[in-house]
């Protein structure tokens, strides 16, 4: 694994490339992608639009490759979990199958959008060097990692939103993935017996870094705990999911990436 590589790669944010994209073309893509039918039509429409307009924009591609790396991780995790004999109980099967379907679709969508610029699938080690040795034999360990990947995924997408502001069509697609990851996260948390939302920075047995900053009570410059003393402060922290930077996310995901294969 070479974490530094991916960090360096991802940090090449070229703001000018975005500025170079002509405004009118952004606008027409935006309008066509805003239509639900087009957004639902499949990867091809999205890919075509993307390739035409964003081929020159390294920063959008970098964000998408970052997203793709996380989606590769999630998709392979669920595929392997479903393939592990007797691991996932019947009751949880529909959840895992549905989530796996979405993560594989996200991979396909991002890959086709990026075309030849797509990064290859890394080689993963879901035991993280042995730290989670029972990931595919103990279902509670497996749920815990699913929880970790989903909550991290939500925070990762959120952290990139502002980097996609100059590309509204892509931003919308990212938001449409982001809320799906949040649904997954809630369901897996619920399956583990926790609330669907993140309470304070409670890590529930997962690495604390995944929840770093989730106890924030200041939003939009307003200290909500001070402003609304009658509302339980825990509810205030739950009401907002906080973003993570690429560096924070890669520090969390890094141990699960054995090789980037690039």
């Amino acid at each position, binding site marked *: 694994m070479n974490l530094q590589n991916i960090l360096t790669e991802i940090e090449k944010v070229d703001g000018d490339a975005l500025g170079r994209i002509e405004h009118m073309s952004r606008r027409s893509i935006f309008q066509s992608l805003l239509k639900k039918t087009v957004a639902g039509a499949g990867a091809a429409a999205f890919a075509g639009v993307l390739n035409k307009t964003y081929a020159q924009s390294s920063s959008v591609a970098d964000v998408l490759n970052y997203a793709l790396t996380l989606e590769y991780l999630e998709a392979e995790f669920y595929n392997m979990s479903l393939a592990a004999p007797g691991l996932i109980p019947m009751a949880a099967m529909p959840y895992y199958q549905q989530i796996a379907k979405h993560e594989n679709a996200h991979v396909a969508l991002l890959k086709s959008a990026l075309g030849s610029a797509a990064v290859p699938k890394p080689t993963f080690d879901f035991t993280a060097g042995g730290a989670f040795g029972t990931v595919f034999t103990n279902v509670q360990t497996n749920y815990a990692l699913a929880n970790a990947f989903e909550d991290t995924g939500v925070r990762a997408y959120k952290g990139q939103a*502002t980097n996609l502001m100059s590309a*509204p069509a892509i931003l919308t697609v990212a938001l449409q993935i*982001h809320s799906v990851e949040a*649904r997954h996260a809630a369901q897996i948390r619920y399956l583990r017996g926790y609330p669907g939302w993140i309470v304070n920075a409670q890590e529930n047995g997962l690495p604390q870094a995944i929840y770093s900053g989730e106890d924030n009570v200041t939003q939009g410059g307003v200290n909500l705990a001070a402003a609304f003393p009658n509302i339980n402060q825990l509810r205030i922290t739950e009401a907002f999911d906080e973003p993570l930077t690429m560096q924070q996310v890669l520090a969390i995901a890094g141990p699960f990436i054995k090789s980037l294969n690039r």
Partner: protein
Amino acid sequence: MEKPQTDPMATVEGLSGKASAALGRRVFMRYIGATAAAGVALSACHSELVDPAVTGSGRAGDAIDLGDIGSNDVNVLNYAYALEQLEAAFYTQAAMMPYSGITDAERKILTDIRDHEIVHRELFKAALGSAAIPGLTPNFSSINFNSRASVLGTARVFENIGVSAYNGAGQYIRTPDYLVLAGKIVSVEARHAAIIATLLEPMGTAFAGDNVIFPSTGLEEIRNPEEVLSLVKPYVQEILNGRNGRR
């Protein structure tokens, strides 16, 4: 591919005719002094059970114009504020009048969500200050608050609308901090949507069902403001108008 129509509000008649009539006689409401004062009182006297927004400072039949949602951040924030008002009022009532047979776990979920929505609403109100639209007056006459199916079914509809509305409006936002803020909220709404759906249908894929997530792309549905406003219209006594962004 045609989506299964599990959304009971999907059949609600569109705004078109009434909206254009309403636009003709629209009233721009900028309750500069009144809203600011109400906001202070509201913050100061908020309590667990009495939620002032249920009464609202708008009046039934008033037209409230959100304008072109894409033209500036105030309009997007007011759009979000309107939706959060509706959600907060709904959960406040649901928590106050627990449906028959409610479990402790369900009660906890509904009161947690109520508080989240109140916090969202109050944050938008504070952020908007004198530019905020008035407090809306809900119309929940179609909801049977004694019925689990009615309450959770409506909650599911509201959450799905909320997520699709935020997803559709993100690209209108000009100020990066507001985009991040909307992002912080929408994922919590999506968590609500998943949990409410799983209460209704515990054994299946409802938490992220094919009715709201396109199966071929794994993307959640998006709605433009006019679609959203036509869906929430039956639940609000004021006439809420707004136009799709033309950014």
